[in-house]
């Protein structure tokens, strides 16, 4: 098993109940997993827990044999090697597209970095936009930059928070296909969160359904 999450639970500071309860997940390398749920189901919280942005109450997680958290260990987000595409992209507004992608690249020579940036721009079809600032891009283009930025450091897992929520309805289908293409091209193991069954059906290999923090369904995408 490439990645494994066991018994993950979490509670927000002012909450009286667990916002995530006993969450379990197994992933094979290159697999696309969808976490499906209404707003408030705890699905985005799960992503934040995996990324290291929240501190779990219980549970453990490992990727490729390496423990990211368990009872006595907690790896900081900057050391996890996990990529994340935020719901509103969080592109750094004071940096160009190119600088945004370069941001996460460390331990590479200057030439390797430039090469990697070129590869990424090609992957998301934004070769001509390297020098633009985020505010000069459309919503769809911004999302692709966010994906390129997250994928560039070769993370072990890519997390996507509601990747389609900020896009116009008529773009949804084409973006789905495009994202599907990008994920397949990179062979990236990924988890995305959505409230839309269609999203889940069209991209995911496996689906987990959350409701009020509890897993109420799990299986191959086809079953749903």
């Amino acid at each position, binding site marked *: 098993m490439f990645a494994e999450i066991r018994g993950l639970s979490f509670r927000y500071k002012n909450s009286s109940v667990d916002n995530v309860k006993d969450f379990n997940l197994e992933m094979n390398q290159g697999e696309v997993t969808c976490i499906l749920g209404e707003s408030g189901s705890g699905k985005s919280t799960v992503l934040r827990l995996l990324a290291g*942005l929240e501190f779990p109450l219980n549970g453990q997680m490992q990727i490729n044999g390496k423990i990211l958290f368990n*009872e006595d260990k*907690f790896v900081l987000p900057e050391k996890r090697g996990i990529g994340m595409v935020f719901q509103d992209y969080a592109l750094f507004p004071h940096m160009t597209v190119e600088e945004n992608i370069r941001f996460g690249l460390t331990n590479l020579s200057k030439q390797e970095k430039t090469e990697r940036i070129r590869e990424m721009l090609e992957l998301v079809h934004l070769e001509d936009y390297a020098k633009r600032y985020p505010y000069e891009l459309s919503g769809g283009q911004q999302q692709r930059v966010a994906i390129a930025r997250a994928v560039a450091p070769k993370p072990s897992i890519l997390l996507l928070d509601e990747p389609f929520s900020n896009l116009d309805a008529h773009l949804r289908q084409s973006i789905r296909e495009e994202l599907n293409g990008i994920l397949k091209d990179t062979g990236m193991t990924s988890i995305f969160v959505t409230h839309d069954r269609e999203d889940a059906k069209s991209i995911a290999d496996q689906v987990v359904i959350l409701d009020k923090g509890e897993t109420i369904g799990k299986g191959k995408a086809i079953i749903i």
Partner: protein
Amino acid sequence: MVSYIVKIKGGVNLRSGSSIKRSFNLWGMLSAFFAALIILPNVDLFGNLFVQPNENWYHIKTYLLKDYITNTLVIIGFTGVFTVLVGSGLAWLISAYDFPGRKIINWALILPLTIPTYIGAYTYNGILNYTGVVQRLLRNVLEVQVSPKWLDIMNIQGAIFIFAVFLFPYVYTVTRAFLSNQSASLIENARLLGKNSLEIFCQVVLPISRGAILGGMTLVIFEVLNDYGVVSYFGVQTFSTAIFKAWFSMGDIDTAVKLSGVLMTIVISVLLLERGLRGRKKYSYTTSKVRPIVRTRLRGLKGFWAFFVSFMFLSLGFIIPVLQLLVWSTLTYKKVLNIAFLKLLGNSVVVALVAALIILGVAVIIANFSRLQENWVGKLFSKVTLLGYSIPGAVISMGVILFFVDFDRKLEWFYKALNPNSITLVLSSSVVMLIFAYSVRFLAVGYQSIEAGFEKVGKKFFEASRILGNGVTKTFFRVDLPMIKPAVISAFALTFVDIVKELPLTLILRPYNFNTLATKTYEYATDEMIHEAAIPALLIILVSIASVYLLNKLGEKEGI
């Protein structure tokens, strides 16, 4: 992939804590250190409140204390009422009506704040005294004899006039901002219900903007309690003049500390009163729609009156004193502008620059720690930064003197080790003590601006950067700091100007023979050299105007 697995080792954190935020040790330690530095002088002050009182104190308590309290309360009471009436009235006029000249007056009404009250005080005295332009005009041109008594402002009423005329923009700006964001639908409804303008002002505008008005008025009162220049120039006995007297004339710090203690009781009462009056209402209302009030157009005579009234306050608070200073400066520039003046300017700029930079550093560190920590420790540090602004300058000076003298005594062995002939009071006779006091007093000004900057940016960019492999500190320099740059610039402008204008702290804590623009202006004025004071005064005003202009520009750019 391999490189990542190896890298993970370095980032392992033991799960002893309850929060991942435990890893901000360096930020936390620095914040705690700065917070301690702010609190310690106050602790010293508090500790010295209870030493055995001496003769001076008994004398003051028996014969003078009542006057200090009465004068102080009378001045803050009347100034409070006048600034509220003028400030909120003008805010309502500008927000709800359109009249000739409105646009210019709208922003120009902040200008009185660029004139420090002590400069306003001696300028008005110069205008109104026997040799001033008003009496000369009456005597020589109009040949009218007016008893000089009628034009004498060197008294408590005069002090109230000065404070009201130069400080009302505190109430004006806060109330105007509130009215323009919050109240459109309420006011339109009142109009539809057939209320006239005065009724709307009294029944709707004043009550709904109560919080904003009180906030502005509290700032005014703090300025008044902090003031030394106006009351000492006018010969009105208040706490700050009493503290100065105890310290400079009698060298009696114990009595000065006791007076500070009583003054702090007034400060705390004002704060509690503000809370109580504001009640549960906060600045913001629940309606999410922000739209401007549709302004009623005033034509003809009504339009003229609206212009006249607002222009009159602008003239009193800015145009008249500045014109007078300009005239005086043409009489004296040859005498005043020399090498010594450059030295003065240099002193002002250097101390303000150093203190403003220290404030920025401390504010940025504590604000960042506090927003990431999100618990009571963070909140506490954030509150501590606000401490200095409510404490009058004279009081802060006493705390800082106690703190530094104590510190110097403890370090005496060290000074002597470095230089056997060294004096004991090394730091407390240097400009270090003054800069320290500035930093404590004006930290709040810079902190609030930077905190607002962080709030606006939010945490998602911080989180994105963490996930992309940067720790807290690296993220701060690569992401947070560039993004809060406008807030840092405004924080710098605000603190720099406040320090250049500052008088009481500087008078008490400056090293021997060290003058700034502010102290020199004050010295000229008290030495009956009002005309000579004009150039340094104008320079201070110019710096303030430049900062107002800069903040305006930044505001426009940010779309505020």
